[in-house]
């Protein structure tokens, strides 16, 4: 029972990592940019949802509006900050991404202040069930299921739809895709929109579990999600999902089974496991080894 509860805990935080990791991996797959501002887009989504909820808009519309808002916001960021640098070195783009991240954090601090805002507690009134001596709120299970549904929908979109095929084509070879009549700019914008929308979705799941919104809330989940993306093989969409869940579960189980006095070491154990995985499979769990093009 204890194991099951801890597994649910891990899956919950893992589903959030996975949703954010998708944004990282899709953007990396298509323009080879590690978008370090991605975690902060999640933060923007959280503030957006908070504002809507505080103005009396129910959770489902608030979620959809916040996702749409972040999608548009993602496109704007791509157009203003990354597109002009698409032809320059990857390092410049990376530095720009870090700049955008700092800009978003500081702007949020300016607009909303640095103190933590409380997200409405949605678990109130939701039933919870007892597993041994521990209880689990039904909302936890709902959010894991929702995350999985969204991920399956994304996978279907990317593999079955025309737009998804275009996305994969651009990611494989931008120039050839352009020659085939694919509008590369639109495709890249779409990728940013989907990634940012997913980040807003993750933000709401995050706030449901940990009801607090701060300007820096995106930083740590952002980094963890980036690690999840690398673990799963960056650029590979199912890899990000699996990476996110694995990271979440390893985290929870390490904290669960490490002896009490040594719990300070739990992060070290988590990262040691990741290092070992990457030593054995440097391109990530589902990543294909990079071949040097001659």
């Amino acid at each position, binding site marked *: 029972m204890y194991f099951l509860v801890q597994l649910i805990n891990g899956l*919950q935080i893992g589903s959030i990592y996975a949703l954010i990791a998708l944004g990282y991996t899709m953007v990396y797959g298509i323009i080879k940019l590690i978008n370090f501002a991605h975690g902060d887009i999640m933060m923007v989504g959280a503030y957006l949802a908070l504002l809507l909820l505080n103005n009396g808009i129910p959770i489902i519309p608030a979620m959809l509006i916040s996702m749409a808002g972040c999608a548009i916001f993602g496109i704007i960021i791509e157009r203003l*900050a990354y597109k002009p640098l698409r032809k320059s070195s990857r390092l410049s783009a990376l530095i720009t991404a870090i700049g955008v991240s700092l800009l978003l954090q500081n702007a949020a601090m300016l607009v909303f202040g640095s*103190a933590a805002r409380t997200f409405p*507690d949605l678990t109130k009134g939701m039933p919870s069930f007892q597993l041994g001596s*521990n209880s689990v709120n039904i909302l936890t299970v709902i959010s894991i299921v929702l995350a999985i549904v969204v991920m399956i929908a994304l996978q279907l979109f990317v593999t079955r739809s025309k737009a998804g095929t275009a996305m994969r084509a651009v990611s494989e070879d931008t120039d050839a895709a352009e020659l085939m009549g694919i509008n590369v700019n639109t495709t890249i914008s779409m990728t940013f929109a989907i990634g940012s929308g997913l980040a807003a979705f993750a933000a709401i799941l995050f706030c449901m*579990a*940990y009801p607090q919104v701060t300007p*820096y809330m995106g930083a740590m989940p952002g980094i963890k999600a980036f690690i999840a993306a690398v673990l799963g093989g960056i650029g590979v969409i199912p890899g990000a999902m699996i990476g996110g869940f694995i990271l979440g579960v390893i985290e929870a189980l390490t904290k669960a089974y490490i002896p009490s006095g040594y*719990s300070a070491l739990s992060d070290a154990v988590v990262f040691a496991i990741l290092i070992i995985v990457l030593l054995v499979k440097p391109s990530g769990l589902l990543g294909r080894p990079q071949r040097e093009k001659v």
Partner: protein
Amino acid sequence: MQKKFFALVLAGVMALSALTACGGDKDTADETTAPAGDAAANDDAADAATSDDGETFRLGGLAPLTGSVSVYGVSAMNGVEMAVEEVNAAGGINGQQIEFNVLDEKGDVTEAINAYGRLVADHDIDALIGDVTSKPSISVAQRANEDGLPMITPTGTADAITEQGETVFRTCFTDSYQGRAMASFIAGKGYSSAAVLYDNSDDYSVALYNAFTEEAKNQGVEITAEESFGATDSDFKAQLTKIVSTNPEVLYVPAYYETNALILRQAQETGFKGLITGGDGWDGILTQFKDDPSGADGVIFSNHYSLYDEDEKVQNFVSKYKETYGEDPTAFAALGYDSVYLLKQAVEEAGTKDKAAVVEALKNIEFAGVTGSFKFDEKRNPIKTVSYVVVQGGKYELDSKEGVTE
């Protein structure tokens, strides 16, 4: 052409980001004379500018006025400022008006050292009230001691602060004192088992945890689990699930209130039914439960004073503070307020603002303030009472107030 346009926009974005950076900086760089921004303090500043001949008592303040711990800094400095105004209105210290300059250090050690340097170099301060949180206070205390400057931290609870030297004092009790106090409190209430969830990256949290577990074991309270987390964590479910499965009667969480709010909610969610306790970092927890005031009901934490203390001094302070700032004073405000009167009494007993004489006077002082009456021990820590505050229906009630046992 299009390229040029985007380059311009990008430049605009960068300029904007530079501006925001400056915007943030400005608060720190400029001396905010009286962050509450009232006319009286501004007049003082104007007076000071014209009379630079040592007829004023130049008091420095250091506090995080922005950043994640700004709530503590702002309330401590509100208390300081209210006291400064009162003292000035009543004729000053030894006939000298207080010229008060407070600098923002954002809760950061480097910023605190720099701000301290500016206070000494630009304002030639006679005494320092600050810093507010422990880590920057330790570094600043070291400098103040080297400079022979009397320093009173109103709220820095780390044992190491006053260990930095002879000129460093504090108005609050120490971390280890507070941890021990809570352990004997729960033992006194008849609880026999407890678990701890603490922040292993924070000196304050670790010190309370160590003192609490040590004293709890001495008093025969079984510690069922000792779990920790990191500064940026917001997921505590794994640790809490583990704690709940060991069935403790009490959970001790020595952390700050923003984190505590998350822990409290997750503890309820994971099915913890016992008593949740903590240290003075819980003061302010109700700011996180504005839409659900009963959400923190039943939490008991050790604190420096309670709003509901019927002592006349406390009630006068509380009503005046409410009038001035429109909110209930936290313990930080009360400690800031006491620090000014503590310093005033020392300077008056010394009869001069000479730094060495003020330090000597502080060592032998017997002070009675809002947060209690105290003398300093040989380590310049006050020997005073601890208030146990219980959160009830969106209010902080006084459970009991206990004297020193050693």
